């Protein structure tokens, strides 16, 4: 099962479009969850009802839209492509436009989901428009409370209020306004789906070849940026390793190059011993180690690994007395 999970992850990562789609869907689900966990609290006061309800209906979509734009990878790619100097590569405005429209479409999904859920649930509409309902259509209006009509209608969204205790007035008005709200919600949903379907169906009729090109190049820009970041990371790793090794070797007392010419050689070193010497980098005493650690803090080495990156290697050539090559490393 881990293999399958790995395959799925790899598939998603290879295609950046499908990652953006996935994030978009997750944001839409988050917006639904946010709505259900939000404790809607209509103030039931004439001056503030509309303000509160319309605020709850429209401020979170703005927040979700901005979040959607920020989270999308294409935003960064598009902004960079738009703001860069031409250099040796000319800019293609069609690619920028394509990225912009793709980003907009994805960013608009979560706000639309919020607005639709709000409308289908109906609480916001009831809070905002209960005062605009004409109470003559409904029976049971409480008329013994001494409050004016507007204040009574403003209290309709609040269930706990005692003035509506014995009548069905409140429930009737609520149901009526909710009807309206759901009708508007379903109409908007139908309209959006129609527009989406029509656009999808007739798009290939216009400029399909150019569309394929712009899609390819926008995908290319995204991949190129990712690869550049990855290469920078790998390069920094290599650079750091070489810089540290160069620093260690610079702390040695003496660099002796032993040329293997004499046959009073000590026994040939094993692989392990070579590795040990590699790891020690010539630092073999406590004072050396202390000095090394102190110098690392006090006097950090400069960022230049040219010497170690282009280290000369030792190549031996054996020639006989006539000058013919018997053996050569070159």
């Amino acid at each position, binding site marked *: 099962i881990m293999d399958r999970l790995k395959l799925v992850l790899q598939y998603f990562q290879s295609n950046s479009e499908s990652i953006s789609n996935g994030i978009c869907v997750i944001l839409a689900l988050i917006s639904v969850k946010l709505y259900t966990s939000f404790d809607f609290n209509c103030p039931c006061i004439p001056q503030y009802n509309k303000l509160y309800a319309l605020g709850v209906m429209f401020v979170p979509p703005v927040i979700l839209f901005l979040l959607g734009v920020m989270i999308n990878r294409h935003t960064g790619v598009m902004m960079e492509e738009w703001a860069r100097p031409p250099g040796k590569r000319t800019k293609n405005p069609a690619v920028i436009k394509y990225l912009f429209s793709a980003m907009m479409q994805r960013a608009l999904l979560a706000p639309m989901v919020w607005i639709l859920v709000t409308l289908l649930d109906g609480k916001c509409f009831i809070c905002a428009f209960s005062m605009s309902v004409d109470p003559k259509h409904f029976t049971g209006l409480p008329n013994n409370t001494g409050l004016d009509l507007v204040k009574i209608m403003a209290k309709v969204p609040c269930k706990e209020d005692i003035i509506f205790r014995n009548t069905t007035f409140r429930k009737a008005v609520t149901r009526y306004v909710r009807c309206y709200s759901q009708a508007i919600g379903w109409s908007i949903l139908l309209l959006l789906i129609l527009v989406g379907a029509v656009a999808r169906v007739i798009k290939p009729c216009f400029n399909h070849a150019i569309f394929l090109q712009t899609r390819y190049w926008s995908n290319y820009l995204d991949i190129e940026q990712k690869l550049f970041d990855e290469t920078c990371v790998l390069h920094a790793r290599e650079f750091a390793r070489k810089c540290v090794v160069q620093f260690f070797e610079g702390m040695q007392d003496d660099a*002796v190059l032993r040329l293997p010419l004499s046959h009073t050689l000590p026994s040939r070193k094993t692989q392990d011993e070579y590795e040990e010497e590699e790891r020690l980098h010539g630092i073999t005493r406590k004072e050396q180690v202390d000095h090394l650690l102190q110098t690392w803090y006090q006097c950090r080495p400069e960022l230049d690994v040219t010497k170690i990156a282009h280290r000369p290697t030792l190549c031996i050539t054996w020639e006989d007395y006539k000058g013919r090559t018997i053996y050569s490393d070159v």
Partner: protein
Amino acid sequence: MDKFRMMFQFLQSNQESFMNGICGIMALASAQLYASFEFNCPCMPEYNYTYGIGVLVIPAFWFFLLGFVLNNNVSMLVEEWRRPTGQRGKDPTILRYMFISISQRSLIAPAVWISVTLMDGESFVCAYSVDLDVYQFGNATEHGLSEEELMRMLAKIPCKLIFDGQHIISREAATRYIQCVSQAFGWLFLLLITVIAFLIRAIRPCFTQAAFLKTKYWSHYVDIERKMFDETCTEHAKGFAKVCIQQYFESISGEMRSFHGHLRGDDSDDDDDDDEKHNNDEDKLLGIWAQDDMDKVLWNWHTCKPPLSLRKDGVSDDAKGDANTQEIGLLNQKGFGSGYNNKKEWAVYYSKV
């Protein structure tokens, strides 16, 4: 365990996504902490405001500091800030970049706490119930209470069970009103931080993109270099320890051999295979063959540890070798002031003409 290891490797492979993961976990922890926190308004005029605003602000501040504590890059930032210049100049833009990215991550959990607190509304109800206008929510026009008694009654609004002024003011209406205001503040707060984050993230590539790439690379480099240095030091310590112990055994076995007076002859009569295997086993014994010798090795290891100074290899028997050893010995004993400058390097350049 294998699943956890793979997940851990996947997260660690990308340092940024690891930090983002910790960030997300802290945000969830802060939401969960609020849900499990039992809000207990004191319902007394003197303490309501302090308690309400305290619950809003102090945990947020605590989460912010916790974000700094849990972030590994803080020590790296301080180290880079305080180090002497040495041979490498210091770049203030790198320090600024690291500080900003650490702060951004630490600000998420406090923002979640503040917005959840404001959306819930209880802390505002607790803090501001005494500031309510009685006539707006009152049931009666005359209440006949003194200033102090009125304040005490208003302060009891957040506590459902001990509220006793139902005939003067409608508790639900007042609570609902304050919760409304609190939620409005919450949404405005979220809108504000989202707009600021949007401006920083989406508009920034228009300005200073080249300089930004540079600072991003070098701040990442500082982090990797620190890790590489620690790795190299660990590997070096391993090699150092291994060679030190090997040389210790060899030195003791050298003493033992001269003490026992070369009792062992050479085993060159055996055939080759046996000889090699024999040599391998002999090598593993490192020259210690008897119980007394081993006891001496163990005793000396505690009472008289060898110096932290490895002998260089390649000593041969002729006079040149002796001179070599002496020279190395002299170099070993010199201090660092002169040793640092007496470096000799031989390099042979071979041209393929």
